[in-house]
Structures are given as C-alpha cells and as structure tokens.
C-alpha cells in the first residue's frame, strides 16, 4: 500500500467562460465548463479523468495548472494555495507542474530543432551551461526512446508517435512532480498508443511522477490509472479506485458509459447488456435543473432528480458519487 500523501487538492473548482452577444459585446450568459469539482491526487498515482466530448476535462486540467484563472474554488499544490499566486510566484512553481497534449504537432514549434525544443524549459528555468544542457537533452531523448543524435532535426521529420515522445521529453526535462496528460494518445495509431503508454508508465516508475491522465478511452484509462473520475457536463459524478469504478460502477451515467464501450471480443460482445442513453448531451451554457444527468438518466424520477442537485458523497469507502438514488 502506498502512503497517501496528497500532491494536488482541488476544492469546488469552477471555470465559467462568458458568452457575449451584440455590437457592444454584452455578456448574455456563461458556458459552465467546470462547475464545482473537488478531488485529490495522491503523490505517485495516476488519476484518470474520463467523460464525453465537451464535459470539461481539458478545462479542469488547464485550470488546475493555472493556465487560465479559475472562476471560483481552491487549488492546492503540495499544500500551497496557488489560485492567489502572482505570475512571478507561479514561475517558481511551474517547473514542477508540466503538461502533455493531444496533438504533438500543434505544441512543437516547427521552426525549432528538437534539441532546442527540449532545451527551452532548461534555458528558462536553470542556470546550467550549454554543454550541461546538451548532455541532459541527449539523455532525455534516449530516455524516451529516441536517437540522441537527432537533436538537430525538426519536428516534421518525425512520426506522430515520435513527436509525442519529444513532447514527453520536454515535459520531464525539469524533473517535474506532476504531469497533466490531456489525451496524449488520442491522435496516435493503436500500435503506437501502446508504445507511448508503456513509456509513460516506465517514466512514472523511474522518476516517481504523478499523472492526471485525461482521456475518453475508458479501456486505456483502466490500464494506466490507479483511481478514476468520471465527468458529465462540468461536474464529477463518480470517483473511485479503478477496479471498484469499473467493477461496481454506482452512478447511472458511469454504468451507461461503461456499457457503451465496445470490447474487442466477439464472444463477449454477443451477450453484453447495453444501456442505450436517449438523446444528446445538453449545453453547458444552460445545464438541466436538479441533477444534470436527469434528461438522459434511465432511472431518473420526477421529484428530487429534477429539482435538487445531488450531493457529492462517499457512497462506499473511498468511492464517491453524486446521485440521489444510490443507497
């Protein structure tokens, strides 16, 4: 059993994006992308964050890193509140909190060599000499499974999977404690996804990294995560150890989501019970009253489900969910 030291603690975090309209750009509403989420990430673990497109996963991840200011709520990193830090104060914390994104192409400057891309954070945050940094860059390239002599090549000379490795090398250059991985494998071919996930796991073991792993691939999240949080329309609806979450999902949305995932085994597919949800995900600018899931929930009642936002509570030891009908 790992000792559970909390590395990141998020409390009632909200991020609303204003909607403007008309010539004078009057604010007419807000997209409630993240609308009150609370969770902890333990040191050395991987917390998976899953949910459908637009539910607020990326916004949660980006707000957590203070890439944009939260609308409300608190974020603690290593016991320190970071929501009220100045830009200068954040600069000293940044090296410890890194990120890897979905599209390895978009976040690598095409005009910079691979060497200078990985060197950039070192240049900015350390006082190491050029020679020291070059040596480190070469060892980072090797660590992520690339040829250390490729420092003078440009991103377009690499495949998608290799570019993702470059992004990973850059993210670990400053020996961070925490990496937010936002769909790091979504753009990659199946056979290459396994390469990148295996690399992330090896690095975690070697460097003691903590990950927030955002993905819509529920099978992959079960593979890589220790605990998993499920989001729906700006809220986390369930969070538990992965075996509990996948084995005994408590929230009706998690149950439907898991049953919808196709599994690569025809014998299992034949008699799988699927919960087919009705309709589409409602707009986060105008979420339904009461429980946000009530418009699609197969067991919703017309009483508290429609009127009262269900409380986030521990429904089993270490297993959290927000639903009126779980006993």
């Amino acid at each position, binding site marked *: 059993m790992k000792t559970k030291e909390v590395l990141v603690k998020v409390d009632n975090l909200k991020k609303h994006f204003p909607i403007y309209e008309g010539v004078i750009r009057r604010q007419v509403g807000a997209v409630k992308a993240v609308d009150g989420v609370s969770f902890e990430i333990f040191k050395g673990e991987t917390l998976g964050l899953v949910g*459908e*497109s637009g539910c607020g996963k990326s916004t949660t991840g980006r707000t957590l890193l203070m890439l944009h200011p939260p609308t409300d709520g608190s974020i603690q990193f290593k016991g320190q509140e970071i929501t009220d830090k100045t830009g200068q104060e954040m600069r000293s914390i940044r090296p410890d909190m890194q990120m890897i994104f979905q599209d390895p192409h978009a976040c690598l400057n095409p005009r910079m060599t691979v060497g200078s891309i990985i060197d950039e954070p070192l240049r900015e945050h350390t006082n190491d000499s050029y020679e020291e940094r070059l040596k480190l860059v070469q060892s980072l390239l090797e660590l992520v499974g690339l040829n250390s002599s490729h420092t003078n090549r440009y991103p377009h000379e690499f*495949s998608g*999977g*290799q570019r993702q490795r470059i992004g990973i090398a850059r993210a670990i250059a400053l020996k961070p404690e925490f990496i937010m991985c936002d769909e790091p494998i979504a753009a990659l*071919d*199946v*056979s*290459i*996804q*396994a*390469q990148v*996930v*295996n690399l992330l796991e090896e690095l975690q073991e070697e460097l003691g990294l903590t990950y927030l792993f955002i993905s*819509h*691939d*529920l*099978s*992959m999240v*079960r*593979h*890589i995560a220790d605990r998993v949080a499920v989001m729906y329309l700006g809220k986390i609806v369930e969070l538990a150890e*992965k*075996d509990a979450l*996948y084995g005994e999902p408590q929230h009706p949305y998690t149950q*439907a*989501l*898991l*049953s*919808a*995932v*196709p*599994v*690569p*085994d*025809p*014998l*299992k*597919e*034949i008699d*799988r019970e*699927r919960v*087919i*949800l009705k309709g*589409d*995900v409602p707009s986060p600018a105008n979420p339904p009253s009461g429980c946000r899931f009530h418009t699609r929930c197969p067991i919703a009642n017309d009483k508290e489900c429609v009127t009262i936002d269900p409380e986030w509570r521990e429904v089993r030891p270490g297993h959290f969910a927000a639903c009126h009908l779980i006993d």
Partner: protein
Amino acid sequence: MQSVLEVNNLRTRFRTQDGTVYAVNGVSFSIDEGEMLGVVGESGSGKSVTMMSLLKLIPMPPGEIASGQAIFEGNDLLDMKPDELRQLRGHHIGFIFQDPMTSLNPVLTVGHQIMEPLRTHLGMTKQEAAARAIELLELVGIPMADQRLKDYPHQFSGGMRQRVVIAIALGCNPKLLIADEPTTALDVTIQAQIIDLIKRLQKEFGMAIVWISHDLGVVAGLADRVAVMYGGLIVEKADVRELYSNPQHPYTRGLLGSLPRLDGTDDKLVNIKGQPPNLRQEPTSCPFAPRCDFAFDRCTAENPLLEQVNNKGGGMHEVACWWDIDAEKPRYDQKS
C-alpha cells in the same frame, strides 16, 4: 449465399509532386447479401481509398486506378462512366463518410437532401418523398421529424447529423451500404446509439454492409467477417470469432495485444515496434517485415499472398504471411 460485390486485385496510386503513393496494392474481397464485413487497420492502411476507388470517389488526378475489377450485380464498377456511377450511388449503393459534413450540403435543408434522391432515383412526387423523408428520420431516431425537414445541417448535433446521413444513405433501400468510420467522430454513448440503429436497420432491410473502422471493439460486436489491412493490402481475413480467437498474422496478433482490456485483465501492453510503412514503393516484399518479430529471409524477398489456412473452427480464414505462427516454422516449403 450470393455475393453482392466482388473486388479483384484493386490497385490505386496517387501521383503526387513528391512521388507516387502506392495506397492500395492488390486488394480482393467479396461480400455476400445481408452480410456485414468489417475492415480494420491503422491510419493510412488504405481502407478509405479502397472503398472510394470502387465508386471513383477519389480525386483523379492525382489518384489513378492501376488495375482491378469490382463486380456489382454483374457489371464492373470500374468500367462505368461517371454518370452511371452517380446513378448507382445513392440508389443501389449507399455511402456514409466519416465526417457527416462531407456528405451534407450546408446550404440545403435536411428535408431537401433526403427527398432529392427519392425523387430522382425512385420517381416519387414531392408529397410522397416528403412522407418518406419523415418516415426515414423517425426510423433513425430523430424526434419531431416532421418539423425538422426545414432545418439545415448546422441545426443538428454531430450524432443527429450522422443519423441524417444514414437516413439519406438508406433512402432508396440500397443493396450495399459502405460506411467509412461512421462513428469515429462520435462519443461512445452516441456511438452505441448509432450501432444499435444500424443493427436494427440491417435486420429490417437486409442490405450488405462494409463497415470501416480502426476500432477493433466496434467491429467485434458488429461484423460477420473481418478484413485486416496493412500497407494497402488485406493481410488477414476471417469469420469474426475466428479472427479474434485465432489470429494468424503477426500484425493482427500485435494489434490485439496492444489493446487494453476494459475488464482490466491486461498487464503490460504489447508494443508493435517501429512505424507504419510509407507506401513510396510498390511492395515487393512483406510490408510488415521491418516491424515483424518473425521475419525471416523469404519475407524480405517475396510478398506473401492471401491464402486459406486450416482453422480449427472450419470456415474461411485467409492470411498473407510466410510464417506459421502456431507451428513456429515457415508456412510453405521454400521455392527451389
């Protein structure tokens, strides 16, 4: 069972400014009436180009169909004139593209787009076509269908748009439906809705379906037979259960091994080392050889053809590989 479509030795290439891309390199398959054929493979393996070549939907130039036959109801599609093909498409052959917006015209109402083929191909009057359009939209699960005929595509969500595309493709009751990754852009819960819908419609109309996907899970639950593509070739083809339980091609094995399991029974994911082929040359050896753990001298000298292998369950199972992965020896005697 009678086959609806039979494709032989299809070869498609693109002559681009920086050289020729050999996208499809001798693909053969057939599909029976009422059958669902799954086509899987990684990005760039030639799935879309294969199917689009059949109806000459690839840009020509730079595209060029170098050889092949595609017999549909006794006629070779590849010999047909563009307007004959246009007649077929949208009538006897339905096509669903990955991105619903490529199939929908943003400036025409959804009603118009469903009714148009009904009027041109089936000779329906405006009233008949409108009534049928409402029926079709209801069939694909669009609520208040009668009020939505006047709406434009952008007024529908992604999942709803894909339903509209399905309604159009099914409008004239095609014998063959080609669906190119119809759910890849959708969320899993919406994907489950669409798969459920297609299954019901196939039962009802009995059309043959080619379902292209890179998701081995989706295909496992849908297809009767599965073809695995790699480097512009079909490298393995078998009945669905046989393929998943007894894969014979090293690439198919690797692909299945690289997938995490929803039930959490995987420990470490199997890597397929290296990168997909770049298709800049016509394959003269096995395209998988640079990544294959079983490669031996013959693999780099000759390109294996699809051949029937003996399988335990009986039925069809073809593989293009020189190595017998179970017996751990070459599959055929070396040519002398």
